[in-house]
């Protein structure tokens, strides 16, 4: 077996293994690249509603029950907190209510996961840490090997020394040009 064949086999089989991770890292890459324009992990919906508050605001449990009843919310309450005299926060699973006593208004914030993308972002940004750090390192190393072996697969006119070299030079120049422009 000559070296070109060895490179071809490495490139092919490593490519199969890396396929899933390439998709995860690239989809997440696009998602987190646009942090300023959207939230890549959550869909947050905020709605405001007017409510009628109980006459006395001393009994927090009573206030919560009354508000949940008016809003027809059946979820159980996780906890509540009063950050100031006029504000009460009520936390439910996947939802939180901010009650404004002054304006008799409640803001309902619903948080939903962007299922799939959130998990991809978690792996891409190495949230799990521990063993995943090494899996990610191995993946990065595999990408280097894929890049190098890929250079030497095509023979003849499409090979690295002929047509291929111009593509390689273009690929190297692209980030350098951007660095020169933006730095």
């Amino acid at each position, binding site marked *: 077996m000559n070296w070109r064949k060895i490179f071809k086999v490495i490139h092919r089989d490593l490519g199969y293994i890396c396929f899933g991770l390439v998709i995860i890292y690239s989809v997440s890459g696009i998602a987190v690249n646009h942090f300023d324009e959207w939230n890549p992990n959550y869909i947050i919906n905020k709605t405001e509603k007017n409510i009628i508050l109980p006459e006395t605001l001393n009994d927090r449990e009573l206030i919560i029950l009354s508000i949940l009843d008016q809003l027809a919310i059946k979820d159980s309450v*996780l*906890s509540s907190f009063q950050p100031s005299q006029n504000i009460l926060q009520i936390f439910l699973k996947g939802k939180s209510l901010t009650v404004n006593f002054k304006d008799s208004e409640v803001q309902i914030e619903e948080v939903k996961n962007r299922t799939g993308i959130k998990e991809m972002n978690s792996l891409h940004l190495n949230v799990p840490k521990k063993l995943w750090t090494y899996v990610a390192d191995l993946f990065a190393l595999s990408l280097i090997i894929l890049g190098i072996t890929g250079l030497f697969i095509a023979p003849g006119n499409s090979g690295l020394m002929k047509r291929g070299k111009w593509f390689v030079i273009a690929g190297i120049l692209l980030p350098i040009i951007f660095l020169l422009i933006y730095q």
Partner: protein
Amino acid sequence: MKSLFKLFIGILFITVMLKADEGTKYGKEIELKETTKISEIINNPAEYLGKTVLVEGTIINVCAKRGCWMELSSDKEFESIRIKVNDGEIIFPMEAKGQKALVEGEVYSINVETEHKCDHKEGESCETGEQKKEVKTIYQIKGLGAVIK
């Protein structure tokens, strides 16, 4: 090859099942055993500045985009403290709002310059309506490790 794949799926399943019951850990392992009341830190910040503390509270707010901070309720009404972590080191999930958290971290301070219109409150010497600059010292905790229950 097929049995190897089945073994891999089996290990994955067991790992997920074992993890389900624990509180979720973030960052470093918590080493301190005794908790400090958040109200203690808020009311005597100078005493805790630069010290590593263990605090417990309800998560009342989380950074929506990057998960790089969360706010814990104090043991007293109207008080809370922000737990700030280095971007990417720890990412707090938004769905943790309302849950209890145990956080170990270092108390630090930052000076924030704020602007407000002169309203002669607290005996300010200025012309009414004039923009006044004020430097406020805010105390936060640099989160090193956390458990969300």
